[in-house]
């Protein structure tokens, strides 16, 4: 192991650049995932005929496939049928597809957890179904969902490392580039330990935030 050779300013800067890409891709993906998941979650909760069933099947399929396969497929297989994205777009799309399927279940169960009595109360006080959903169910469900959404973001940060298979210049990729230098085998352990710590610090902080929010909402 060669810590001084591994942790040169150039290498550290290169790793930070990679981490920034990881954070960016994960952040964009969580925003889109949340929006899409909310739509899917509401449609399935409201049991809108046909659409709810189709989405149910899709969610079930995606949840049961490896993310690595989805990333690789989006970037390398879809172009065979004429659909083409850049590396960063492929990563964002693949992560969004996968995470929104996961998140839609969180949102659906958040909605289901709101007591039926409240809905009936809302309806009987003259609100329409949509109004009840918007003013009574959603705000409460949303508050309950914040902690699981933060957890999902932690998963996303970890999962972004899989985009290494399509050469997205994120943290794992940049770590490998450093290790591939001539004589880089002496850097492998120090670099991997540092990279693990980088993920840990950010994710652990997020998980503490999630726990705080959980305590507040219950």
């Amino acid at each position, binding site marked *: 192991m060669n810590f001084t050779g591994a942790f040169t300013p150039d290498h550290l800067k290169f790793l930070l650049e990679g981490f920034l890409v990881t954070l960016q891709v994960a952040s964009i993906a969580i925003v889109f995932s949340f929006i899409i998941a909310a739509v899917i979650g509401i449609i399935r909760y409201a049991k809108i005929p046909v659409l709810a069933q189709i989405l149910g099947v899709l969610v079930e399929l995606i949840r049961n496939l490896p993310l690595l396969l989805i990333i690789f497929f989006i970037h390398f297989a879809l172009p065979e049928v004429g659909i083409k994205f850049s590396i960063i777009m492929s990563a964002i799309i693949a992560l969004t597809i996968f995470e929104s399927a996961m998140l839609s279940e969180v949102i659906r169960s958040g909605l289901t957890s709101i007591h039926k009595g409240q809905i009936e109360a809302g309806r009987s006080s003259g609100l329409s179904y949509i109004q009840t959903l918007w003013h009574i169910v959603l705000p409460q469900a949303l508050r309950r969902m914040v902690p699981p959404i933060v957890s999902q973001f932690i998963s996303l940060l970890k999962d972004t490392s899989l985009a290494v298979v399509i*050469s997205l210049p994120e943290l794992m990729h940049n770590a490998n*580039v450093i290790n591939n230098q001539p004589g880089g085998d002496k850097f492998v352990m120090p670099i991997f330990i540092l990279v693990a710590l980088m993920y840990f610090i950010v994710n652990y902080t997020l998980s503490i935030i999630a726990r705080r929010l959980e305590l507040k909402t219950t």
Partner: protein
Amino acid sequence: MFKRKKRILSILLLAFTAVFMLTACGDKKDEESTGNDSKGKDALQTIKDNDKIVFGVKNDTNLFGLKNPSTGDIEGFDIDIAKEIAKSILGDASKAEFKEVTSKTRIPMLQNGDINAIVATMTITDERKKEVDFSDVYFKAGQALLVKKGSSIKSIDDITKKTKVIAVKGSTSTQNIREKAPEAQVLEFENYAEAFTALKAGKGDTLTTDNSILYGMADEDSNYNVVGDLFTDEPYGIAVKKGNTELVEAINKALTEMKDSGRYDEIYKQWIKLN
């Protein structure tokens, strides 16, 4: 309750805008199409229209294409050849753009238009000719064996069914070793760096691929050397998407110019130190 709802919403909104701003300034505008799937138009025309040419190159192959973490640039023989081609076609070496490929991803990336041409230690084979069009040979390599100094393996004849041979996924060397030494156990790795690490870790007895790459490894760690005669011809070619004859011609012209001017020999001597 109403206040809290508002607060949560505003926190979420703030987070979203922060993220968008972060990405808006950080996100490098991703490439326009590299074309060459638009009907009837040769990739050469697209390259000229975009005023840039995108090459798929290795990022982990010492001497041919290796990414330098200090600069973020990829350096090597393949890179310099590609720059010369850009200079010949577009008049400026800096109009060459590089994208990282592996043996596994280079053909899909060419087919899906991520790159205009592959300059990535790629051997011309009949099988590959069905998928892509090749330029003239730009580097003559051959398959050899890399072993730890003092190994009992001196040539391909010393490979027995107990020998574990390390190779790289999707490369011709994998197929060749299965033909020339069918009794050997072949272990396939993602890339050359991993393969060499595996050899150093004792996961196999010998690593086989093109001698050019093996010399790069021996150059890196003097405990290893290249043994045996070349048991295959591995002529490297530059691959472009099928049907782009004009682009192939332009690349061939660039190669001839390079060889005539002596620039090719300069690049060769700079990178390839065959003993």
